[in-house]
Every structure is written in structure tokens, then in C-alpha cells.
């Protein structure tokens, strides 16, 4: 029965993709058909993956001869794959609903049938990546996912920035894929078979040097896709340029497939995990977290800001995974499964609130036609539904109770603090420092989202873009609203989710069967009894306090006269939107404090008529130094270009020279064959 649902999902994606072509003349219909296909497929996906997670039974599907000439396609669902299938399917449903309304702005300009095809193939390839069980299936699905997402990123190919972003994404993801293929090749060379189960069985036979190389290749390869620092530079370019539903899926689902694959490598293929791997993952995690949020604070392009926050949240997930690896190496499986459960829960929560935020940004973009928050303001009156949903997403990503972001961040904090129970001075000290740095990142994230929400939606409009904004249609509202409600729901359902995740992570870290995380009723209890949390109670207490305050004020404060009047502007008239704080100004204090990182530069040009008091024009430009592009990637590309310039000399264009090359190669090969 479950196998049939898997096939149904694949079928719906294919049908959804192709159905657009039957209605080529009518973009509205082809868009609706494509999105409905994706929606139904998503529902099927949620069903069977929830079934696998609940019951713990897996599903296996084998298609012999599936890939021509090379081998069979093996799809297998265990709990880990099922969780990620659930995540992808769950996110695809509201995004598909949103896309029905959002894509209207592409009607007449882009071919909706092809967009629908790519959209469905993108989702299908992500599902296949997390279900694949042999190398070929995985790599083919991975490559299709990268290619189709590249094509979707350059949907607006007339825009040179989109082309450039797509190119950068294309190059980086293929560089990553090369490392992944290398890691798989090394595993194949030891185990002799291409199936993942064979890799697991031969895990003991890997020498420790080989294991280290495989781990590093996998980390670099999947890190590029996930957006870990320092492989992240494509993320802030590609995610903003893609259409908003695609950005939501890329940020919410695609980078999680890389996390899935990393978990497979760490805990499934490579056997016992040495301590320093956990330390490396933790280091990358905290670096991604802090740098992601610090760079996000300096952005005033709404979608770029959200892309940097994706980097930050991947960092938080890596902190959980890193602590899991550390605890596995110190033989504390209970803490390890808690840490990995925290990471997985954060992955699900991040998909939800980041998807919501990107959809909100898409709604703002389609309503105002600008992504620059310095030109917005006052949208809460023009687009109230978008504002409320974006507020929910902002509160969730800032980890405010009682939403879902708080629970997973709490769990990550505790996973880090559990390091205090370990041996060694080093683990104890650094786990505490990491926990406080996570606190810093959380507070800075709240600052960033207050800025993003406040400057975009509150106050007065700063330009005509904002004054003429319109709310989106019904489908966009339903898509965002569903995700906003899930933010609350995923938080309240924490005990249930964590118990399922506990079983899942227990199977990864080798714990014996049974519930590894203590869940008493509505409470999440940390394994050694350090702390407990009950989100339903928090919600109840907050709701009751809020109603009590409102009731108290209504009862005890008599009916008082309320007038409206202009805001206080020191008594001046002519109050305009340009007098408000700008986004750049809002984060200026942070730019000053962290100037060692940002290296801010400032250029002021003044034109005058020769007398310094008669200034006619003044130009101000300020910027920050993008650290990784300048120090790592620009030298690398310069070297590559320099080397290619030199190597270009062998391409002379004369056919005689080329014939000469063939002749010389032939002579060399004959000599080689003769001598060996």
C-alpha cells in the first residue's frame, strides 16, 4: 500500500510537469495544473512518510535496469529518509498553493508549461535524492536537482544579475558534486558495490586515513550545497534572483537534502566517528551561524537578508549534528540522539518559517515590485495579511516562545550544554562558549528581523513603490497562512515530534530500542534531568496573561477618550517618510562594533563650483568588505584565469599544429606500449 503511494507521488509529479503542455495557450490553466500536480504529490508524500515515521517500517522499491546500461534504481525509505520526504512534501504544499497566484506576473512573459515542468521535476528530484539507495540513483537525482534548480534560478534570464547568480551557483554546485562523487568513489573502491547498504556493511574495513578523506570530501561537497561557510557564496546570489516560490523551496528543502546526505555519511557509512570530526563540524557550524547573521544584518535586499539567515540556520543545525558526533565519539548515545533530534527538528522548523518568510518576501515583491527595504514602509496598512504572516515568521526565526523556533533552539542550547557533562576541559569550555555564541546569534537574528519587518511594514512609506502596494490574491494568502499556522502548530506538537525524532536519531546513533528522550505528557525533559520545557503550558500561560491584562485594563481603566494626531516630530510640520530611520542606519551600531569583520568603507564625493561653500552635489557611498569573496574566491578565480590564459597558447587555430599534436601523441603512445 505504501509502495503504491510512493509510485503515486512520482506519477503526480510527472503528470503535473507534463500537463502544462496540454494547455500551452492558456498560461493560467497550465500554471494551475502544474501546481495542483505538485500539491497532490506533496499530500501523497506526507501520507506515506508519516506512515513510515509512525510505524517504523521501511519501504523498498527496486527498478532493475532503471538507468540504461548502468544499473538499477533502488529507492528505500527508512525513518531518516522518511523524515526528509515529509519535510519536502510538507513544504511543497503551501508553496504550490502560493505559486498559483504568484506566477501570474510571469504570464505572457515566460512559458508557464516549461516552468511547471521544471518545478515538478525539481520536487521529484529532491524526493528521489533522499530516497536513493545506490550511488547512481543518488548522483543522477542530485545532478538533476542541481540542473533544474539552475534553470529555475535563471527564469528571469534577461536580467544580467540573475544570469551571473545562476552561473556562480552552477559552478559551485558542480564543484561540490565532484567532491561528493569522489567520496562515493572511495567508498566503492573499498566495498566493491554501489549500494548504500554495502557501504554500511563494509564500514569496518575502512582505514582511518581513508575515512578522514571521505569525511572531508563529503563535508566540502555537501557543504557547498548546504551553504556552509566558506562554501556559501552562491547562496546570497542565487536565492534572491530565483522566483519566490523557488527560493522558498531552495532554502527550505534543497539545502536540507545536503544535511540528509551528511547525516547518512556521518552515521551510516563511516562507522565509529572520531572526536575531531565533531569538532570540525561544530567549528563550521558556529562560524556559519555568526557570520550568516552578521552579514544578514548589513543587507537591505529583503531576499538576500533571508538567504544569509538560511546560512545562519544551517549553522545551528550543524551545531546539533556536531554535538551528536562528539557524543557518539565519547560514547554517550543518549546525549547524541538528543543533539541529532534537535538538529532534525530545527531543520523542519527552519523549512517552515523560512518558507513562510520567502513567500512573504515574494508577496511584497509582487505587490511593490522592489526588494529593497529602504524603499518600503507602511505596508502593514496596504498588505495586512502578508504583514501578519511575515511577523509570525520573524517571531519564529527569532526563537520567541511559544512558536516552533524557540523549541528547536532550546534543544540546541541544551545539546551544547550537555557537553559540560563530558570528560575533558576542552569540551566543557568550548561547549559553553558555543552556547553563549549561539545566544549572541539568536539576539542578533531578532535584531535583523525587527529591522526587516519594521522598516518594510511599519511607519510611513518611503517611496512611491510602497505607496502603491497591493495585497496578493487568495492563493497567496492561503499559502502563507497555512505556513504561519504550522509555525505555531509545530511548536505545540513538540512532544509528539520529539518522540518520533528521538526514535529516529536513536537508530542513527546506535542506541538500543525504546524511547531515548523522556517525554512526560506535554513536557520535554532533558536526559540528565537538567531542565524541562513544556510548550503547551507556555502557550497557555501567555494566553491567559494576555487575556488577564486586556480584561484588567478594560475593567479598571474607565472609558477614556482616544484621539489621533500626528507623531511627535519636535514640533516641525511636513512630516515625511524620509525622516524615519533607514535600514542602513538601523544596523549602523552593529556595523561599528563588528567593524573588524566588516571592514566598512566609505566614499564621499563633493562637487562644488570652485568655492567650497557653494556645493552643488554630494555623493555618498558606503560598503562592507565581503570577506570570503575577497580573500578566498577572487584569488582562486584569478589564478584559474591566469592559468587558462597561459594554457590558451596551445590553441593556435592552425589545423597543421593540431595534426602535429595528434601525430606526437600517437608516437608517444606507441613508444609507451612498446616499452611497457
Amino acid at each position: 500500500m505504501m509502495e503504491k503511494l510512493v509510485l503515486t507521488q512520482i506519477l503526480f509529479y510527472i503528470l503535473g510537469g507534463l500537463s502544462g503542455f496540454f494547455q500551452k495557450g492558456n498560461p493560467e490553466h497550465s500554471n494551475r495544473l502544474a501546481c495542483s500536480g505538485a500539491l497532490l504529490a506533496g499530500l501523497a508524500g506526507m501520507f506515506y512518510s508519516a506512515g513510515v515515521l509512525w510505524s517504523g517500517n521501511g519501504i523498498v522499491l527496486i527498478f532493475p535496469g532503471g538507468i540504461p546500461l548502468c544499473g538499477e534504481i533502488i529507492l528505500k525509505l527508512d525513518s531518516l529518509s522518511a523524515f526528509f520526504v515529509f519535510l519536502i512534501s510538507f513544504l511543497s504544499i503551501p508553496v504550490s498553493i502560493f505559486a498559483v497566484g504568484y506566477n501570474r506576473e510571469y504570464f505572457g512573459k515566460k512559458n508557464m508549461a516549461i516552468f511547471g515542468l521544471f518545478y515538478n521535476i525539481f520536487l521529484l528530484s529532491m524526493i528521489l535524492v533522499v530516497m536513493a539507495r545506490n550511488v547512481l540513483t543518488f548522483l543522477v537525482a542530485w545532478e538533476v536537482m542541481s540542473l533544474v534548480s539552475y534553470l529555475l534560478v535563471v527564469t528571469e534570464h534577461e536580467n544580467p544579475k540573475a544570469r551571473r547568480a545562476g552561473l556562480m551557483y552552477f559552478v559551485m554546485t558542480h564543484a561540490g558534486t565532484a567532491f561528493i562523487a569522489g567520496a562515493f568513489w572511495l567508498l566503492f573502491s573499498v566495498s566493491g558495490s554501489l549500494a548504500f547498504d554495502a557501504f554500511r556493511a563494509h564500514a569496518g574495513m575502512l582505514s582511518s586515513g581513508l575515512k578522514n578523506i571521505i569525511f572531508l570530501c563529503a563535508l566540502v561537497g555537501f557543504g557547498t550545497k548546504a551553504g556552509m561557510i566558506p562554501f556559501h557564496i552562491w547562496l546570497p546570489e542565487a536565492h534572491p534572483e530565483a522566483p519566490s516560490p523557488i527560493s522558498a523551496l531552495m532554502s527550505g528543502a534543497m539545502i536540507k537534502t545536503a544535511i540528509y546526505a551528511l547525516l547518512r555519511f556521518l552515521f551510516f557509512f563511516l562507522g565509529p566517528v572520531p572526536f575531531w570530526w565533531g569538532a570540525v563540524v561544530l567549528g563550521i557550524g558556529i562560524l556559519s551561524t555568526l557570520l550568516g547573521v552578521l552579514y544578514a544584518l548589513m543587507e537591505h535586499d529583503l531576499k538576500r537578508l533571508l538567504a544569509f539567515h538560511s546560512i545562519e540556520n544551517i549553522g545551528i543545525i550543524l551545531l546539533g549534528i556536531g554535538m551528536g558526533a562528539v557524543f557518539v565519539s565519547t560514547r554517550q548515545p543518549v546525549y547524541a540522539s538528543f543533539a541529532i533530534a534537535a538538529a532534525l527538528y530545527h531543520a523542519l522548523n527552519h523549512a517552515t518559517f523560512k518558507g513562510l518568510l520567502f513567500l512573504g518576501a515574494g508577496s511584497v515583491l509582487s505587490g511593490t515590485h522592489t526588494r529593497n527595504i529602504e524603499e518600503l514602509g507602511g505596508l502593514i496598512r496596504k498588505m495586512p495579511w502578508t504583514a501578519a504572516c511575515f511577523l509570525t515568521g520573524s517571531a519564529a526565526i527569532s526563537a520567541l516562545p511559544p512558536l516552533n523556533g524557540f523549541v528547536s533552539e532550546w534543544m540546541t542550547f541544551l545539546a551544547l550544554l550537555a557537553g559540560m557533562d563530558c570528560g575533558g576541559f576542552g569540551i566543557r569550555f568550548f561547549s559553553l562558549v558555543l552556547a553563549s555564541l549561539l545566544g549572541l546569534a539568536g539576539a542578533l537574528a531578532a535584531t535583523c528581523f525587527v529591522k526587516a519587518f519594521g522598516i518594510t511594514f511599519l511607519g510611513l512609506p518611503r517611496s512611491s513603490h510602497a505607496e502603491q502596494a497591493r495585497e496578493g490574491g487568495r492563493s497567496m494568502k492561503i499559502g502563507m497562512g497555512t505556513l504561519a499556522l504550522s509555525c505555531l502548530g509545530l511548536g505545540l506538537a513538540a512532544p509528539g515530534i520529539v518522540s518520533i525524532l528521538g526514535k529516529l536519531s536513536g537508530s542513527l546513533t546506535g542506541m538500543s530500542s525504546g524511547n531515548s528522550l523522556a517525554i512526560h505528557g506535554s513536557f520535554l525533559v532533558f536526559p540528565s534531568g537538567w531542565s524541562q520545557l513544556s510548550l503547551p503550558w507556555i502557550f497557555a500561560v501567555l494566553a491567559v496573561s494576555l487575556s488577564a491584562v486586556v480584561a484588567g485594563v478594560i475593567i479598571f481603566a474607565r472609558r477614556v477618550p482616544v484621539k489621533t494626531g500626528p507623531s511627535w516630530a519636535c514640533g516641525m510640520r511636513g512630516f515625511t517618510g524620509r525622516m524615519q530611520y533607514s535600514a542602513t542606519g538601523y544596523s549602523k551600531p552593529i556595523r561599528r562594533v563588528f567593524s573588524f569583520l566588516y571592514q566598512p568603507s566609505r566614499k564621499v564625493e563633493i562637487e562644488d563650483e570652485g568655492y567650497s561653500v557653494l556645493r552643488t552635489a554630494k555623493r555618498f557611498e558606503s560598503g562592507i568588505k565581503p570577506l570570503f569573496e575577497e580573500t578566498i574566491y577572487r584569488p582562486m578565480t584569478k589564478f584559474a584565469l591566469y592559468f587558462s590564459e597561459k594554457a590558451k597558447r596551445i590553441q593556435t587555430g592552425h589545423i597543421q599544429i593540431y595534426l602535429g599534436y595528434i601525430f606526437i601523441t600517437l608516437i608517444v603512445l606507441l613508444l609507451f606500449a612498446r616499452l611497457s
Partner: protein
Amino acid sequence: MVLILGAAPAVSWFIKKMKAISQNRVGPRFLQVYFDLIKLFRKGMVISDTASWIFHAAPYVFFAGTIAAALMVPVIWKGALFGFMGDAILFVYLIALGRFFLVLAALDTGTAFGGMGSSREMFLSSLAEPALLLSFFSLAFHTKTLSLAGMMSGLAMDPPHRVIFFTSLAFGAVLILTIAESGRIPVDNPATHLELTMVHEAMILEYSGKYLALMEWGHQIKQLLFLTLLANLFFPWGMTGTFSVTPVFFSLALYVGKIAAGALVIGWIEIHFAKLRLFRAPDFLAIAFVLALLSFLGQLMVGR
């Protein structure tokens, strides 16, 4: 709970009276702070015409968040009323919830002062939060529990001379953070009239009437909560476990004494120091971070 609600304005009165006496003035009488709040609840309001529903909702959410945080802190009894629902991390984030909405309401009015106040407040609190979390974690390392009530009972059971080397460092950190979170000199001047020197006051500049009353009262409650933490975490003796009259009365008297001492310290600092320039405040908060870090490092060095 009622105690916290009722006593919060009294702490503000105490500090105002201290400042007045040091300036050779008479200062307000004790009930004046309560009369001020009641007056504000009765006055009419003028709402800015750029304000949206966030402006109206923020005082309620801020107050509710602060009350929810207050319900987690043990005051006189050994346990808190709702201490079971979470731990120190939840406390910090409930305060952050209130602050989030307060800061949004400041931006809602569309004034430059609101933006300035909210930018500065988020800036300072971003730097203060890791120090606060680190102090809690450092205490939790010793008492092996993160719940506030657990930390207090754990520290009460230890003989003082054993723990003083790290609790004194953590005390310094939490004292600095109390000053930062309550908006006292040297981080912020609560008595200033100049908008460009305001942090907290700039955010509530547009509020009047009952909303202003809720904001002020909520802010005083937050101040009292931090003083309670200072008192009960670092001088945790005398909290009663039972409900009978004499121990409760004794514990209440002891609590009033501890809070009065804390308010005395804060008032003394207010009188003798000037407000720091905004970009010097991170150095001040960094001192708190370093103290908390040293408190933890000290425990590691001495050995457990």
C-alpha cells in the same frame, strides 16, 4: 505574583528618592509612583495616525510577556508558581518576546526617535543577552540544573566560602546586566528629556494614557525581576518551603531587605556615574561577558 506587581513601582520610588536626597531635594512621597500609574490609566490617549495594530497590541504583549517571566522566578517561596514550564533560557526569551514587540511598536510610529530608540535597544540587548545566558550557564554548571528554582536551592545548600569565588564573578556580571536591562545609568538615563540621549524612553515616546501606564509598569516589573534574580540567586538563604505564617513573614522581610539593598546599589551607581556614550556601552557589556566567562573558567580550573 501580586507582590511583584505591587512592589515594582516601589523600587523605582526608592531610587528616585535616593537621587533626590543626594541632590538636596525632598523627592516624591512613597505613594506618588502609584498615584502616577493610576493617573495614567485614567488619562485620555492621543494615538499617532501612522500607528497600526502593533502599536495597540504591543503594551499588552510586553506586559503579558513580563508577567509570564515573573511567574517563573521564585520570590519568597522556594519554587515559582509556573517554574515547571521552563528554565533560565525560557526566562531570557520571554523577556525577549516583550522586547520584540516593544521595539516594533517604536518603529510603528514612523518617527526618527522611534527608530533610534529601537535600534539602540536591540543593539544593546543583543550584546547583553549572551552575557546573561553565560552567567546562567555558569551557575547551572555548578548546580547541575537550569531551572531557576533549582539553581537557587542548589546554591542555598552550599557553604558560602566554597562557592564565593565564582558566584561573586557571576554576581558582578548579573549586576551589570540588571543595570542594562532596567535602563539605568550608565547604560541609559531614565530621567532625561533630551530625545537624542534616550534609549528606552525614545521607544515609548508616542505612548500616553493606559498604554504608557502598562509600558512603565511592565518596565518596573522587569527591573524588579532582575533585582529578584540578583537577590535570590546570590543570597538564596531564607526562602521558605512551607506556607505557614511565620516563615513566610520572615522570608518576605528578608526579601524586602535584599531588594532594598540591591536598589541602594543601583541608586548609588546612578548618583555617582554619568551615562556612557552609546558606543562605549559595548565595552561595559563586554565586562559582564568576561566576568561570566571567568566565573565558568574558575570552576573548571578549580575542578569539580
